[in-house]
């Protein structure tokens, strides 16, 4: 039994174990243990090597095999990490409350374990068929996590699975075509034949795989399902899903488009001669995926949905970096998977911690909670700085690499799109933290306590990861380099603090050093000089002629940026909603017509009609 087999076995055994552990209040405390074990096993395996599985069999003329290389390892890390955080988060008070409110902890933990197992199976795929098997398992494993919350989440889950299956079918068709056109599903074999395929064939494969995997990444125009499906789930599930689930799409894209089909081939495929090749198309899909969902997030009034919409937008950076394909861009795109996973996990865990205490995620019904839940505030603050991609957090590093690549490759409009996305993120996450933690504390939240350690603990550990990997990105860049090598990409010249490049590098050790020193100077200036400060009550402030009392609400997240909405408000037309609705209407119309056919009064006429038509067809030359 190889190391990989052992890892998969532990992940599989964890299914019943997680179910059993979830059953009792004391047992629950151990929920995170199996994931800790898996994480240890993963870290023990060298990401630079390829770990084969002993399992392999021939079936239907296809040989199925599994192997974990640098790319899979790199995605497995945040997968297990996110599960670890989610399990730890739910192992204490949260779990008790959830079970107490009629939720099924067993199902939650079982579904979480199933997701991890399915993802590992996918990440260790050794050929296209096992890739598809893993893909489908991951798609379906996500569903129970989403629908656990009941209510609106069920609808969101069904919408998800419909989209996911649409994507899955595109992937299946792609797999079948590869098999028929090259005669094999084993990478070594079909990669030898792929270059001989005609352009339309490769183009079709690219479209099918990009579209299919893109559904999971919620790339435009397949993005509508994701925010409600992830956001409306229960806390730990949402954090896990939001952090890593849809990144499986990026993994598959990296494997199939970058490694198997190769970016050079993508560049060769011209869409509009002299103007647009297929790689540009992918990059622009990514760019629109950055912008539109980010600005949709800006309009959300539910903290969970706001974050979930950002998740879609952040995926755009990853795809954008990856398809740029140069050392820096692809490193940035892949690094962002890890960085974003840490950020989003912290953010969602913090938001659900607040929800756990206040019972709401409505941004118009909170405020001022910083004085009651300072640790959650800190976690959210670190998370939003990371999500917005500002130094000193890790999100900055990955985005910097992507920007840097866009500048070097000479893509001004894509660069602008990436920056517009970041600016929108800043606006949106400020609204998030402002409306939850800043401003007035509401009367009904006077007695709120900080979330328990079982919840803040995982959040703070993740925060530490964000800061450490922000200061020392080289820690993760090493693994990213292994992943890049596994799919045949160039590796940037990296070191512990960042990257070096003749055209301008980055050293986060120094950058964060001066930022911290700057803060220290600021702190000395502030606290060391001048008069003593005096805390005043929140209502003791200057109102320019008006009196503020506790019953005066001024949360106006509904239209937090009126000046901006004056300009872009009209652009929120819900065109994609409309498209989706139109498609459903068409299906509905056809279905009604078909039902009419089966309910007609004269079915026998159709028999005669059919046979007449058949005769005509047989007799006419």
């Amino acid at each position, binding site marked *: 039994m190889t190391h990989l087999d052992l890892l998969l076995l532990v992940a599989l055994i964890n299914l019943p174990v997680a179910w059993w552990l979830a059953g009792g209040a004391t047992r629950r405390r151990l929920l995170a243990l199996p994931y800790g074990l898996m994480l240890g096993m993963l870290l023990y395996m060298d990401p630079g090597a390829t770990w084969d599985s002993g399992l392999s069999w021939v079936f239907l003329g296809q040989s199925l095999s599994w192997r974990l290389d640098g790319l899979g390892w790199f995605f497995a890390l945040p997968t297990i990490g996110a599960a670890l955080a989610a399990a730890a988060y739910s192992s204490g008070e949260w779990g008790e409350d959830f079970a107490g409110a009629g939720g099924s902890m067993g199902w939650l933990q079982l579904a979480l374990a199933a997701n991890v197992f399915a993802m590992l199976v996918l990440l260790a795929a050794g050929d296209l068929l096992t890739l598809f098997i893993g893909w489908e398992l991951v798609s*379906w494993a996500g569903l129970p996590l989403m629908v656990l919350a009941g209510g609106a989440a069920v609808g969101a889950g069904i919408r998800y*699975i419909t989209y996911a299956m649409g994507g899955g079918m595109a992937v299946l068709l792609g797999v079948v075509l590869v098999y028929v056109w090259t005669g094999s599903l084993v990478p070594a074999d079909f990669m030898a034949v792929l270059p001989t395929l005609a352009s339309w064939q490769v183009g079709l494969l690219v479209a099918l795989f990009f579209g299919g995997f893109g559904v999971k990444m919620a790339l435009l125009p397949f993005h509508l399902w994701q925010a409600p499906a992830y956001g409306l789930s229960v806390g730990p599930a949402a954090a896990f899903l939001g952090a890593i689930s849809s990144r499986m799409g990026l993994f598959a894209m990296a494997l199939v488009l970058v490694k198997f089909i190769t970016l050079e081939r993508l560049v060769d495929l011209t869409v509009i001669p002299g103007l647009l090749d297929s790689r540009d198309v992918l990059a622009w899909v990514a760019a629109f995926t950055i912008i539109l969902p980010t600005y949709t997030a800006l309009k959300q009034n539910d903290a969970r949905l706001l974050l979930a919409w950002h998740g879609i937008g952040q995926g755009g950076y990853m795809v954008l970096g990856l398809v740029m394909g140069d050392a820096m861009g692809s490193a940035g795109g892949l690094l962002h998977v890890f960085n974003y996973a840490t950020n989003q996990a912290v953010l969602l865990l913090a938001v659900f911690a607040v929800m756990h205490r206040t019972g709401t995620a409505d941004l118009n019904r909170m405020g001022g909670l910083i004085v009651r839940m300072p640790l959650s505030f800190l976690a959210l603050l670190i998370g939003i700085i990371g999500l917005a991609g500002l130094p000193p957090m890790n999100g900055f590093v990955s985005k910097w690499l992507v920007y840097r690549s866009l500048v070097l490759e000479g893509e001004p409009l894509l660069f602008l799109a990436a920056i517009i996305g970041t600016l929108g993120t800043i606006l949106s996450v400020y609204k998030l933290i402002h409306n939850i933690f800043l401003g007035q504390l509401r009367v009904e939240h006077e007695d709120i306590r900080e979330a328990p350690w079982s919840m803040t603990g995982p959040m703070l550990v993740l925060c530490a990861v964000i800061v450490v990997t922000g200061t020392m990105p080289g820690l993760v860049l090493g693994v990213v380099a292994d992943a890049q090598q596994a799919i045949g990409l160039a590796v940037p010249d990296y070191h512990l603090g960042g990257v070096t490049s003749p055209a301008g590098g980055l050293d986060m050790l120094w950058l964060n050093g001066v930022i911290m020193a700057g803060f220290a100077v600021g702190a000395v200036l502030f606290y060391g000089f001048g008069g003593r400060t005096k805390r005043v009550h929140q209502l003791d402030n200057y109102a320019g002629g008006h009196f503020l009392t506790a019953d005066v609400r001024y949360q106006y997240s509904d239209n937090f940026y009126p000046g901006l909405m004056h300009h872009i408000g009209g652009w929120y037309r819900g065109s994609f909603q409309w498209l989706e609705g139109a498609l459903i209407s068409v299906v509905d119309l056809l*279905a009604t017509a078909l039902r009419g056919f089966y309910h*007609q009064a004269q079915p026998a006429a159709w*028999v005669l009609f059919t*046979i007449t038509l058949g005769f005509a067809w047989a007799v006419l030359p």
Partner: protein
Amino acid sequence: MMAYAVALPLVAAFLLPVLHNASRWLGILVGPAALVAVLLVVFQSWQPAVLPFAMDLGGFAPPWGITFYVDALALLFCGAVALMTLLLWPRDEGDGDADALVRRRSLTLLLAAAAAGLALSGDLFNIYVFYELAAVASYGLAAERGTPAAYAAAFRYLMLSALGSVIALAGIAIIYFETGTLNLAHLSLLAGELQGPTGMAAFLCLLVGFGVKAELFPVNAWVPEVYGVTTRRTAGLLAGLVSKLAVLVLVRLLVLVFPQEGLRDALLLLGVLGLIGGELAAWKARDMTRMLAFSSIGQLGLVFVAFSLPGTAGLVAGIVVAVHHMVLKPGLFLLAGQWGGGLRGLAGAARRAPLAGLLFVLFALSLVGLPPLPGFWAKFLVLTGLAGQGGGLGWLAMVAILVATVLEVSYLFRLAGRLYSRGDDEVPAAATGGGTVTAGVFGALVVAAVVFAPALWDEVQDMGAGAGDAALYVRTVGPMVPTMISGGAP
């Protein structure tokens, strides 16, 4: 020996009312006993060394006697007939009408006999006879509830089926007129004479005629109503079993007598239309039984698409798809029988019956093709076959299959979501455990198919290769047909 597969249920069907009057226990036992005996016969005959073999009934040599051709495929269907009938054996519905129950069981046995006959028959005339026998039995079963709706549906079925039979008969007549024989082996030798438009017309007649029972689009308008009003066991039997046997007959004809490309295209086109049409209609269905009925139409469309593929690959794909559906659909119908009725009333049903809920999810997942469940392999085989074949129609079919799968997911899991929703708990589901247990057996079959997949795959490959070998058929049956040995038409 194999004659018992037809004879035992047939005899039991006629004896059952008599024996029931003599002894209640005898009446209850005779049917299952006959079916178990058939199963044993099938098992005993399943020896790769002796397969395939041919036999004539009653010692009359063809063309006057009845020829049975026994290969792995025929045995598979014979075994399936017995097993399905046994699993879906009519139960005492508790309506106290003992006579109706006896009648129902009797008809079921008759259906089993006719179905086995269809699987084994080696000449067209007998096929027609067994087909009619099956039709008569199924009319009775369709109307078994005795409600006005049941009679209306059964009458609709009767009308369509009778018209189909007439057309099939016309096709048989054309063939006989052209070649002078109805023995399939003999016809296979004379296939050249059926290459022209007349032959094609004959096949189309048979296609439309048998297509009525095979739920072929567009002659399947009886399906949703009949399945909607009969007991779920009967619906499972008709959808799972009888439809497949009608398909089997058409496949035998295609392989042995009509190797024309164009006919495969016709089959493919009708299959695609049936697939898309069925799934679309199911998407809109408002009660579970009709949803399953429409879904069954769609699945049969897929079966047609699979069998339209040329060569062994097509047969293998077709067998896998057909058997897969044969196992799933009765299971689903049984669950529907458990829950019954409109979709609205199903909220929270799976919460009250967790096992049934799990089975539903398992069946649904296999139906939409989640690997490694068997439904995936079925779909994969069909798709690779279509992609390899290429052509405009092939691409259309591929897209249709994929779109249909998405539709299937959409409605099946909309229903699953409803089953698991926190509905109003005051309406407990009718707690008849029997249906769930039987569905559980079907579920176990699905799981077993995953576990024993490689072995099954080898078996199916052999089966497909055997069934696709027209020369083998002729060689096997030939010695029994005097006219063939002399080599000329009578």
